[in-house]
């Protein structure tokens, strides 16, 4: 199949449909409305159901019900809407229900703006909702990668019985790029024998639940779930590197920001400055191991984390680098996107070059 131009949001929706997602519940919010709109038109064609919920609070709970009944289901929103979903996401994680949630991040806090941002990293990777739980968080940096990761997200969700968050931003949602929908290798997935879709005379009742009033039981549940998270950390780290050989300054950036940084690295190379890039594709599990390895390289002088935030992922970079090298930060916030020249200057500042 040849490449076609697709808008990020619509490509994400089509990718979900191709992954076998037949159910979508959502509530309007910019800049991700094209996902809902596409699903509203597309899902009836595959015998599925799109439903506009009365709120994000309702849509995530509809996802809870649909997933509990064994369906492949997705919702999407943007930052303020994802905040409203946090209660439901915590319940879904606790009840171990597979689903895919897409956050096309916009500037915040509060109502913020509608321009692209990465300021929901903490919310995505450090809980967001209440309690001890983790989400698998995948952060594409192109429309093609969004398509690939959304499809894989459904398999990861089913394999580990966990919600998976696809973290984009307004830019990736709104832009058009060439996309090829090639078949993603399917994983071998366990049967959903836990689904509460009617006993049908074949089994005892199933219960979808997250309530454990006895502290001992609640702890056992959490410990068991964290064993699963450990398995995810072992098997599901995704990370790309660029130009690391001879790099004096190693940049760490994810999503669309990584593309700004890769341009900056090319510019620096022309000026004789060696910089490289580590791009976490899975934000959780975070590629701490790779960052730690690179931090140990004698040629590496410093790290520079670049984000569309006031500095969130940089905390995980610092943990991974663990004091071996200085970790600098450059960010723009509120919907502003770092410029290539600004990143170039930051690297030059670190290497002591004249700007």
């Amino acid at each position: 199949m040849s490449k076609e131009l697709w808008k990020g949001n619509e490509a994400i929706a089509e990718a979900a449909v191709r992954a076998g997602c037949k159910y979508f519940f959502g509530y309007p919010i910019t800049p991700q409305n094209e996902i809902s709109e596409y699903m509203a038109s597309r899902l009836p064609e595959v015998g599925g159901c799109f439903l506009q919920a009365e709120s994000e609070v309702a849509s995530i709970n509809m996802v809870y019900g649909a997933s509990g009944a064994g369906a492949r289901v997705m919702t999407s929103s943007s930052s303020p809407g994802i905040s409203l979903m946090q209660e439901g996401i915590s319940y879904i994680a606790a009840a171990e229900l597979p689903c895919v949630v897409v956050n096309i991040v916009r500037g915040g806090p509060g109502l913020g703006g509608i321009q692209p941002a990465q300021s929901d990293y903490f919310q995505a990777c450090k809980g967001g909702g209440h309690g001890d739980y983790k989400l698998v968080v995948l952060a594409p940096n192109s429309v093609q990668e969004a398509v690939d990761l959304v499809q894989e997200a459904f398999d990861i969700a089913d394999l580990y019985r966990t919600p998976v968050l696809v973290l984009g931003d307004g830019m990736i949602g709104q832009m058009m790029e060439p996309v090829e929908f090639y078949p993603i290798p399917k994983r071998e997935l366990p049967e959903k024998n836990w689904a509460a879709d009617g006993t049908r005379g074949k089994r005892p009742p199933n219960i979808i639940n997250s309530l454990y009033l006895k502290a001992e039981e609640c702890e056992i549940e959490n410990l068991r779930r964290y064993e699963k998270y450990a398995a995810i950390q072992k098997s599901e780290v995704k990370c790309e590197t660029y130009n690391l050989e001879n790099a004096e300054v190693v940049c760490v950036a994810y999503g669309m920001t990584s593309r700004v940084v890769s341009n900056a690295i090319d510019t620096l190379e022309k000026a004789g400055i060696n910089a490289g890039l580590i791009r976490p594709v899975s934000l959780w599990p975070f590629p701490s191991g790779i960052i730690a390895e690179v931090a140990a390289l004698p040629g590496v002088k410093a790290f520079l984390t670049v984000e569309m935030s006031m500095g969130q992922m940089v905390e995980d970079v610092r943990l991974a680098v663990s004091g071996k090298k200085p970790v600098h930060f450059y960010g723009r916030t509120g919907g502003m996107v770092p410029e290539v020249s600004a990143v170039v200057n930051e690297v030059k500042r670190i290497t002591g070059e004249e700007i």
Partner: protein
Amino acid sequence: MLHKVIMAGFGGQGIMTAGKILAEAALREGRNVSWLPSYGPEMRGGTANCHVIISDDLIGNPIISEASAVMVLNQPSFDKFGNNVVSGGKLIVNSSLIAEKSPKDDIGTVYVPANDIAAEFGNKKVINMIMLGAYLKATGVVEISTIMKIVSEILGQKNPELLKLNQDAILKGAELADEALGGEAGR
């Protein structure tokens, strides 16, 4: 090849469509491409723009600060993006709505009275196609024939008359750019 163009104008002037047709053409000619729109309330009546990058390599940042070309359809867009053209780049100006001249002398500038020409065509909706034609001729970034094919796929079946109008508009724009740049077009 690496070409970066910003197209900007009032919402409703067909800027987004012009950019999409260009991106589609570049894709068909085997290039990598990104099309990034401004989005939000300004899309209705305010100033809208899209950034299109065409490249033989992978495309990094889809936001353009140093543009190979800028195509502006109204004064606010001229004010905002007129200075983003790099030396040797092209600036395509809708002179029906923009009285100012570009102070830059190291770029190729084409002034196209697109609204006036559209009025002669009897359809103001073809402003974007007139401008696109001028831009295509001035930059030579994709073949006009590829653009014509895409336009005919969009309009051909449904409305043959409208197709002819749009194709004539593109050719008229190209003709004006050729005259303005005096053989320098497409370099």
